[in-house]
């Protein structure tokens, strides 16, 4: 490893910050993928991978991806809930990886709810 100059150290810090963002709790938005047995059977794990792939190419990794249990709407699985800071959460159902990517771009990054796939707006009992 070559010795760093001041500028190189600063650059390195910018890179390194991307690696630890999960632990610092600085999020603007949160995606919850429902991973009950029903969800997993319907393909929830591919949805997780699709979202992760999108997060990977972000510079500011301020999106949190987590999982939760069955949401009680097994027929609509795979499902995900998207929460943006200071706005009501939105539930999406019958997801595919393509739908997930579109939701990521339009809702998470763009701030616009993808009404085509939304099955409920507001807390818990949406849908």
């Amino acid at each position: 490893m070559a010795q760093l100059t001041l500028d190189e150290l600063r650059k390195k810090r910018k890179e390194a910050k991307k690696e630890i963002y999960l632990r610092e709790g600085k999020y603007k938005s949160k995606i919850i993928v429902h991973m009950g047995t029903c969800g997993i059977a319907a393909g929830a794990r591919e949805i997780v991978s699709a979202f992760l792939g999108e997060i990977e190419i972000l510079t500011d990794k301020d999106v949190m991806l987590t999982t939760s249990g069955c949401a009680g709407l097994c027929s609509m699985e795979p499902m995900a809930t998207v929460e943006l800071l200071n706005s009501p959460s939105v539930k999406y159902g019958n997801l595919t990886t393509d739908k997930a990517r579109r939701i990521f771009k339009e809702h998470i990054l763009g701030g616009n709810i993808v009404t085509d796939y939304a099955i409920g707006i507001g807390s818990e009992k949406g849908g």
Partner: protein
Amino acid sequence: MAVRRIELMLCTGTGCVAGGAFRIYETLEKEIQKQGLEKEISVIITGCNGFCGQGPLMVVQPDEIFYGFLTPEDIPFLVQEHLLKGRPVKKLMFTPPEKKEPVPLLSEIPFFKKQMLVVLRNKGIIDPEKIDDYIARDGYTALEKVLSSMTPDDVIDEITRSGLRGRGGGGFPTGTKWKICRTEQKTPKYIICNCDEGDPGAYMDRSVFETDPHTVIEGMIIGAYAIGASHAYIYARTEYPLAIKRMDLAISHARDYGLLGKNILGTGFSFNLEIREGSGAFVCGEETSLIHSIEGKGPEPRQRPPFPAQLGIWDCPTVINNVETWANVPVIINRGADWFSKLGTETSKGTKIFSLVGKINNTGLIEVPMGITLREIVYDIGGGIPYDKKFKAVQTGGPSGGCMPDSMIDVPIDYESLTEAGSMMGSGGMIVMDEDICMVDVAKFFIQFTNDESCGKCTTCRDGSEALYEILTNITNGDGKEGDLEFLDEVGNAVKDASMCGLGTTLPNPVLSTLKYFRDEYEAHIKEKRCPALVCKNLIKYYILPEKCTGCKLCLKNCPPDAIKGELKHVHIIDQSKCTKCGTCLDVCPPKVSAIIKVTGKEMENITGIEEPYPVKRRKK
């Protein structure tokens, strides 16, 4: 590394490692593979989380869920339920004593709530073996700032204005120490980091090494720049292999990055650092003794002044500071003296790390703002005393500290208030004692320790501690006599005044402070041959209450010296001539029966132990 959705922050501090943290690590890795989650989830090792009493433990991020008392058997379920299906596992969460519902989130657990993390700001967030993790948490930005925009005098001024005082015991103002050294003409100059930490039960400094070694290194580089030193030593005990390993690794990473060595970050400043391992004596932690030890001489202290800042290692000006002192430096530079000086009390700024041990529900390592009260530490953070016993005292400052009694529970803790109480800050050991602890016995224990550790160079310390120990032994044996307390007082104060180094001047503290606050307990031992806490073996007897004994033979079978007479359904009798007072009978007697008691003083007279067993009378249900 690709992005992950979950990181498992697994504690690998000394406590958790002893509890099997690395076995947990292996099982986690295996189960994560098994579920095919290795691309989404990674396990990160961290330094001590602090809540050592709950170890082995980990925190799941970003959910922030805290799991404790982990065993390898728990892992498959945990991985499947929480990591795969997103259902946190309640039974592995922390449940406060006497509560039914667990507290899932780390930040909601009372133990963590009142803490303030300055030195330990990266605790549980970084992998101590990765320099990039430290850098990501704004590590080495203070060094950048210093090297690119501050003069050495600016740095000293900032540290002075912050009010930072030494965390190694004495509480000397750090900026002043640096200034003294800077103004010395002689060169080269040296700096030393004191990680001797020989107090029984204390593990703050070693944990800082294990948790975040780079913050110490960064602090030392900044200190070297400020005083004009080009070489440093880190003195650590051989008994702390994990701390040394992580520090060693951190130094080599820092060197690779050009943060140590020649022409640091291309600024022309050069500085080098090496670890020296010391082994053994408590007195090695005393600064002049430590310097002798690095020089290869016998680790004996010498008279001060001159202070090391004027005449230190290799007869050169040397700044020696404690681990925690160094670790504060980068934060002060980054956030400014004004910010730092707002934390704490008038005379004591910032935070302090304590190791909270003894009779307390939540044991562990805590960092709290100066000025916090004992009550907050014992009841809010510590969760109170187990089994609802009564709080009696807290011993602070290590073996040469003193006791703060119940009456001082609301005094804000800082350097001055502890000294006033007859104790001291020391390096931050905090031992909680409940009603079952005998204060005379405690004083004896600590004097025995310092008496053993006295280097013997000055007679007051050596013979004085011996004399104190002898009297204390007599008192606890029931051989105390009129005048003993006056003698303890006199000798204690003489040792305090006339000893050469800090070991001698502080070793009477445990005696003098207990004499001050628990004099009646001493008097009971001497005048009534009574140990109120029922601890001193010569002053107690065990006795089986005939009206309660069911004649179950449990104590009889377990008694090591076979001192219990009896047969089934006959009231058992302890033969006092054989009893060694080990207390086994009390431990094994079923709680529903509770037939065994301890007695002391006058009550002992009637207990002879020469009666014979007789049949248990039928009792009304």
